């Protein structure tokens, strides 16, 4: 075991970790913004609204993330009109391609989680809301939204952990996040055991922390299910 090398590489790996966190953070925020409308379209009763959302979720959940990365990063360059458009300044950057691929992927999975949560809100409450004369927007904001968010939490926490792990694929499109930095150092030093142990450890810390955060959030959001203080 070359502990000296591990110590020397740690600062570089931590720099890569920052980029990993940046990718995950951005993909989560944009992904959620995409997932909410997708989920709402998916539960629509109008087929022409529901089918595109269904197709989106079906395609991006049914294909490997690596293919999605390659389609965005390499695939789009096949079209001259994309290469000549203003979009190309963004689409030739591995950084933006990674964010696009991760966002699309996580929004499909999150959309499906949200769909389940929306459909799990009990029918009687929606009817009660309708009986009180609420518009569908009011129903969504006051009745369905808050409960669906709570119901979606366990599924969503799994998705966040999967996304942290998925971000490693950005290294395949030459981005130097945690895995990319690790592979680079190994290419120079050829000490795979030490460096993968180190990188694996950092990923473990990240996924563990994500788990703890969600346990805490879930605890806070289920206050109504706990006995009141002093009654037990």
């Amino acid at each position, binding site marked *: 075991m070359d502990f000296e090398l591990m110590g020397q590489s740690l600062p570089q790996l931590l720099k890569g970790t920052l980029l990993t966190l940046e990718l995950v953070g951005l993909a989560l925020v944009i992904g959620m913004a995409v997932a909410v409308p997708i989920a709402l379209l998916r539960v629509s009763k109008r087929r022409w609204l529901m089918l595109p959302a269904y197709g989106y979720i079906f395609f991006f959940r049914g294909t490997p993330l690596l293919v999605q990365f390659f389609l965005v990063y390499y695939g789009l360059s096949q079209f001259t009109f994309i290469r000549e458009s203003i979009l190309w300044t963004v689409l030739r950057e591995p950084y933006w391609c990674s964010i696009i691929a991760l966002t699309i992927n996580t929004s499909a999975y999150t959309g499906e989680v949200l769909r389940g949560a929306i459909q799990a809100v009990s029918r009687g409450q929606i009817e009660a809301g309708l009986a009180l004369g609420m518009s569908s927007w009011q129903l969504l904001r006051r009745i369905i939204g808050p409960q669906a968010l709570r119901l979606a939490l366990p599924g969503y926490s799994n998705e966040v952990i999967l996304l942290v792990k998925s971000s490693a694929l950005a290294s395949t499109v030459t981005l130097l996040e945690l895995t990319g930095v690790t592979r680079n150092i190994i290419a120079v030093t050829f000490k795979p055991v030490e460096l993968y142990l180190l990188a694996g450890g950092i990923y*473990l810390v990240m996924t563990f922390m994500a788990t703890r955060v969600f346990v805490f959030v879930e605890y806070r959001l289920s206050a109504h299910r706990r006995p009141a203080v002093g009654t037990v």
Partner: protein
Amino acid sequence: MINFYGFGGTLAAGTWMTIQVSLLSLAFGLFFGLVGAVAKLSRFMPIRAGAGLVTTVVRGVPELVLVLAVYFGGSVLINNVLSWFGYQGYVEINALGAGVLAIGGTFAAYATEVFRGAILAVPEGQVEAARALGMHRFLIFRRILLPQVWRYALPALGNLFLILQKNTALVSVIGLHELMRRASVAVGYTKKPFTFYMAAALIYLAITTVTSFSLQLMENRAARGVRRA
């Protein structure tokens, strides 16, 4: 008809390799998942703790890192161990073995929890009844536990298998000539990345769709002894 520039056969060969890798990893993962579950239910604390540690680590690390670590790190480790015993040659893990180990290992780590829950879901009284009939432990496992564990575990295992099939694409990174790798090679010759990666995507989609359809049939069959509510 789409033009594959003569690489259609290559894609077909890659698809066959992808199917082989996923089935091998599945067999590996099912076996070690069951072993892991039995270990987690063991009466001996060190065995339980060891199984818990392994599954936590494997589930917390990206699959891509696992594939790379097994392939590159595994070779180094094996050669170090061999040199202690005085062996001077160089041994290399092949891409197929490393892929099956990493992808099947991930499946096993998740399947351990699934099997553990399913074993606990079988009523204790049935095991006692079997013991009263004089069955020994292996026979109880085969006749009483396994058929029911299968029914309880199948839906979750099916999801894990769909994830496994998509994870096999990662083995292309260490050079195994499965679907993804073949598509990349074709792209190298033809400079048509979208055509070939989209073709690969659609083949994966077909594989996962057929799988989830078959899983539904298998779930129905596994539950044939249970009355519907």
